[in-house]
């Protein structure tokens, strides 16, 4: 079953863009559904049960975050891969915090998109160099209150891994440079994703605002 083609759903309000992605992925993936708005998308994902959902950040009626939040706790949860033309941290990071397992810009080439789909499908995180840079920036921002929560900080090793990702290194080379296995690199990236997504202590908005990722009034 694991060698089967990934079942992918597309959620984007631009039909032309969906058509383009469908054509590009046609050989390697099975496109099981498409939607242009959150309500449609929620219904479609519930019915089609894709492995991976390519989810646009900017959608009418609440954006991609609305889709992720509506499907939280619904089994089986698909892996969300955020896809956007935006390269602003205030768009990208909240999406990942809400539950997306990765983020890619719409200018990504097909091979990289397929690699990202494969990675999130197997439960791993996919950090493009740009997302890694943003996350690094978010965790480096001066903290308004003393961070009593270890979950709010990165370990030096995680920081190193993220830094290499931002510089464009693939996992294999990061492993070589840091003297660890690619699998361990993956574990570190997964840990960073979990720290991003944990919101037991603080509301997501507070977290993001405290790090200057969103304006406090937004």
């Amino acid at each position, binding site marked *: 079953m694991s060698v089967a083609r990934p079942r992918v759903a597309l959620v984007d309000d631009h039909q032309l863009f969906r058509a383009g992605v469908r054509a590009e992925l046609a050989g390697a993936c099975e496109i099981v559904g498409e939607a242009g708005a959150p309500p449609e998308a929620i219904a479609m994902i519930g019915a089609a049960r894709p492995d991976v959902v390519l989810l646009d950040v900017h959608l009418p009626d609440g954006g991609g975050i609305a889709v992720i939040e509506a499907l939280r706790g619904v089994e089986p949860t698909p892996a969300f891969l955020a896809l956007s033309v935006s*390269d602003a941290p205030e768009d990208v990071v909240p999406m990942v915090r809400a539950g997306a397992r990765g983020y890619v810009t719409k*200018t990504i080439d097909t091979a990289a998109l397929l690699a990202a789909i494969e990675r999130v499908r197997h439960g791993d995180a996919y950090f493009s*160099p*740009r997302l890694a840079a*943003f996350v*690094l*920036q978010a965790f480096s921002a001066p903290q308004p209150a003393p961070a009593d929560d270890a979950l709010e900080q990165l370990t030096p090793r995680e920081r190193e891994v993220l830094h290499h990702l*931002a510089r*464009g290194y693939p996992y294999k*080379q990061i492993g070589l440079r840091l003297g660890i296995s690619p699998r361990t690199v993956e574990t570190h990236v997964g840990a960073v994703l979990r720290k991003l997504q944990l919101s037991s202590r603080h509301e997501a908005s507070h977290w993001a605002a405290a790090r200057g990722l969103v304006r406090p009034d937004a």
Partner: protein
Amino acid sequence: MSAIRAAGEQRWRDPTWRATALIGAVLLAALVLGLAGRAGGPRTVALALAAAVPPLIAVVLGPSAVRALRASGGRALILAVPFGFVLLELVRLALLRTHDGLALLAIATLFALFGLVLLGSDLQQRARRAAARAARSPWQQLTTTERVRALPWRAVVGALLVSWAALLTLGIMWPYLVGAGILSVALVLVVSLGVLVLVGLPVLVGAAARDDRERLAQAREDERQRFAAHLHDSVLQTLSLVQRQANDPAAVARLARQQERALRAWMAGRPEELMDTLAGALHHVVEEVEREEGVDVDVTVIGDRALDRAGDALVGAAREALRNAARHACGAAIVVFAELDERQAAVYVRDEGPGFDLAAVAPERRGVRDAIVGRMAGAGGLATIDSVAGEGTEVALRLAPAAGEAR
């Protein structure tokens, strides 16, 4: 029903209408008072008229008459109507037997009204001409000849009419005023001034609000034009370039990418990637190399700092590193990552090309490395080149905190 109410509300919002209503109420009150107290009845009415009518004419009737006439384009009417009235009233005066003070006062009011219409129209035209003169370019000022008028006939006729009305009013009022003594004259003056303030303030405020609205509309229009001009210079320009190079997919992709980046910077309020910061200069250099070498570069810059001498060296070294990467990457991905703050700066230029053995680089090819390593050293920074055959190359450029600076 609701339409009528809406129309009423609309009218009430108009300061001129409010002023008219106010003056009407004052006159009505005076009339009632005059009729109720029989002794000196007509005198009270005359006093009220004397107090209320001048402001009414000055701030309400005059300007509205000017507006109405101008709207109808009735320039001839401006001339014909007052003279028609003058003739008519002269005939009536000839027929009058009894000395009817109120009728004469009404006539004087009409004269004054049309005199003010003429004066107002003259002033408006002067203001318009002055504004047009101010808006002209120096070249237009030199080349445009203005028709010189021998006599401002409108102003003269207007002033004559107003003076005549004033004399007439004074003539009618004189007996009352003489009988009333200095106190009544003072009262008339005070009441007149009071009414003028009451009426004039809302009109002035209304005019200021109207000006504001016009300025706002103008600002919106200016903004739209700025927007249109920007889109024309950027997006439309790129689209036409794309059409012309439609058979070269690489060029089209590059153009689209550059335009996308520029448009996004513009939307984020970063006008044209300011060149006076290090981040702006880095983005600029990336675009330059993308254009020159026909490659795509994935660039992320975190933070920023002012562009100083060391920053210039860093940008120069980054340009060389990027050119190198573009030439040796053979189409593989190029990633630029920069971390900047006021204390330090680091720029990483990485390509996924075949890589090379540093020791094996021929001496005559060192020049390029000197442009990177030497330049950074000269600026008190450091450049490290890290290349593994088959794994790509990374050039790391760092500016350390200044030596004297405390941590």
